[in-house]
C-alpha cells in the first residue's frame, strides 16, 4: 500500500495508467473488427492493432517495473544518507524553468491557437492573423513593448504573410466577413 502511494505521486503514474487504458481500448476494439474465415489471420484488419496493443502492454509493464525499482532504490539511498537535500533541489519538475507568469503566457497562447482557428473561418485569414499576432506578442512582451510598436509589427507581418500565402502560394483560406 505504501509502495502504491509512492507510485501514485510520480509523474510516470498517469502516463502508465494512460498506456494501459490505451492498450486495452485498442485491443478490445481490434477484436471487434470483422474476421473473415478461411483466410490468413494477418489479412484481417484487427491483426496488426491487436499485436501493437499487446506489445504496448508489455512495454508499459516493464516501465512500471522500472518505476518501482527506482522508488525502492531511492528509499534505500535515503536511509543511508546522513543529510537530505532540500526537496526543491531534488528533482526536475514538470514545469522546469516556468514561472507562474510564463504558465499564464502559455495558457493564453494555446487558447489563442484555438481562437485563431475559429476566427479564420469567421473573419478571414488576414484579420485573424493580425489579431493573433497582436494578442500573443502583447502577452509575451508582458506590457514592456509599446502598443503602437506591436500594432506596426502585427500589421507588417500580416501584410507579408497575406501576400506570400494568399497571392503567391494561393492557399485557399476560408472566406470570412472581412479579408
Amino acid at each position, binding site marked *: 500500500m505504501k509502495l502504491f502511494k509512492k507510485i501514485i505521486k510520480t509523474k510516470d503514474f498517469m502516463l502508465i495508467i494512460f498506456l494501459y487504458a490505451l492498450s486495452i481500448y485498442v485491443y478490445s476494439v481490434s477484436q471487434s473488427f470483422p474476421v473473415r474465415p478461411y483466410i490468413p489471420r*494477418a*489479412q484481417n484488419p484487427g491483426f496488426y492493432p491487436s499485436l*501493437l496493443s499487446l506489445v504496448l502492454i508489455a512495454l508499459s509493464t516493464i516501465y512500471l517495473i522500472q518505476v518501482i525499482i527506482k522508488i525502492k532504490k531511492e528509499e534505500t539511498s535515503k536511509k543511508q544518507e546522513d543529510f537530505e537535500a532540500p526537496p526543491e533541489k531534488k528533482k526536475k519538475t*514538470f514545469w522546469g*524553468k516556468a514561472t507562474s507568469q*510564463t504558465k499564464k503566457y502559455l495558457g493564453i497562447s494555446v487558447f489563442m*491557437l484555438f481562437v485563431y482557428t475559429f476566427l479564420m473561418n469567421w473573419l478571414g485569414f488576414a484579420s485573424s492573423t493580425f489579431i493573433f499576432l497582436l494578442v500573443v506578442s502583447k502577452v*509575451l512582451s508582458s506590457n514592456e513593448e509599446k502598443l503602437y510598436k506591436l500594432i506596426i509589427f502585427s500589421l507588417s507581418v500580416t501584410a507579408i504573410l497575406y501576400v506570400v500565402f494568399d497571392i503567391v502560394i494561393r492557399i485557399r483560406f476560408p472566406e470570412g466577413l472581412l479579408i
Partner: protein
Amino acid sequence: MSGLHFFSNPIIFFAIFSGVFVGTVFGALPGLTATMTIAVFLPFTFGMDMIISFAFLLGLYEGAVYGGSIAAIIVNIPGTPSAIATGLDGYVMCRRGEAGKAIGMATIASGIGGMISIFILALFAPLIASFALDFSAQEFVGIALLGLSIIAVISPGNLVKGLISGVLGLMIGVVGIDTISGFPRFLFGRPELNVGVNIIPVMIGVYGLTEMFIQIMEIETTKRVSQKIKNVIPSLREIIELWPTYIRCSLLGVFVGAIPAAGGSIAALVAYGQEKRFSSKGSDMGSGCLRGIAAPESANNASTGGALIPMLTLGIPGDPMTAVLMGALIINGLRPGPMLFQEQMPFVSSIFISLAIGVILMVIIGLVGAKYFARLISLKREYLIPIIMLLCLVGSFGMRDSTFDIFILIAAGIIGFVLRRIGFTPAPLVLGMILGPIFEKNLRRAMILSRGDWTTFVTRPISLILLIITAFVLFGPYISEYYKANFSKQE
C-alpha cells in the same frame, strides 16, 4: 548525371538559395532546430514542382545544420543540437574577439564536409540500392524494426520510453482505412481520417509548436545577447593546415550520419572527441583553436549526406531531419527505397546536384552574411514566437485546406510538450508514424505469404541478420553493463 537537365531552369537555383538562406537564419536562432525548420516550411513546398520543392528543402537542411554554429560561437547557445561541440572552442575564440574567424572556419569546414559527403552519397547510394533490390517483405520488416530500435536507444531518456514512443507512433499509423482489407479503423466518425492521421501537422506540432511552448515557458529566464562581427576569413595557411582534420571528420560524419537515427549532433561530438584524442595537436582543443571548430563542423555537415544514404536507398531515415524529408517524398507519391533508383534516377541525380550547389551557396552566404546573421540572435522572442506559431498554423492548414489538420497540429503540439516534460522525445513517435505503414504492410504480407508462420523472419539470411543486429542494439547496452558489473566484481 541524368538529372542535369532540370538545372536549365533558373528557378531551381533561386529555390536552393532561398532554402540555404532561410535554413541558415533559422538554424542561427537558438531553440529553433533544423528539424523544426524543415517541418514548418515543408507544407509550403507542395504547390511547387517536385524537383524545385526538394531543392528548397535540401537547401533548408544544409543551411540549418550550418546555421546552428553561429549562435554556438557568439553566445554559446547552439542554434541546433549538431552545433553543441562547435561552441566548445568557438565561444572561447569569441570571448577573445575572434568570433569572425571562428565563424569563417565553421563555414569553410561545413562546406568541405558537405562536399565530401555528397561525393560519397553519389558513389555508394546506387550500390546500396542495387543490393537492397533483393529485399523482400521480411527484410523490410527487419529494417523498420532496426530503425525504430536505434532511434529508441539513441533518444535521451531510457530505452523503454523510446520504444513506447515508437509504438505509439505505429499505433497512430493504424488510423484510417486498412489498405489490405479496406476496413475503416479508428475513424471516430471523421471522414478526414479515411486516409489516416496527416503526418505533416503532427511533425510540425511535435517539433515546431512544442518548441514554441517551451520557449514561452522559459521566456523570462533566458536572455538574448549579440556581438559585432569583423574579419570573417581565417588565413590561407590556417585553412590548409587543417586538411587532415577535414578529411577524417568528414568521413566519420558520413559514417555516423548513415547509421539510422544517429544524426549530426552525434557525428559532431564523436568527431570532436576523436580529433582531440588522436590528433597531434588535440590537446589544444577546448582552449579556443580552429581545429576545435573544423572537426565538429566538417562532421555535422558531412552527416547530412550520410543520413540521406539509408533514407534514399532503404527508406529508413538517417536522422529526424531526413525523417521529415522522407515525409516530403511520400507526400509527393515517391517511395524511398531501391525502386526509387530504378524508376526515378533523374530525380535522385537532381538531389545530388542540388546538395552540391547548396553547399557552395552555403559557403558564400555564410562568409558574406555572418555579420548580419549574428544580429538575429538578439531578435526579441515576443516577435519571433508568434510568427513561428503562425507559420505552423498556416502550414498545417495549407496542405489540404483543412481546419481539422490545425486541430491535429495543436493536439500534437500539446502531446509533444507533455512528452518532452516527462522525459520522452518525439523522434521515435514521428519515426513510428512514418515507418508504420511500411512496417504493417510488409509484416502482414510476410505473414500472409508464409501462412502465419513466424519463422519466416529467421529463415531468410538477411532478415535474420537484421533481427540479430536489432537485438544487439536493444540488449547490447544491458549485456555490457551486466558483464562489466560481474567482471569488476571478480576483480
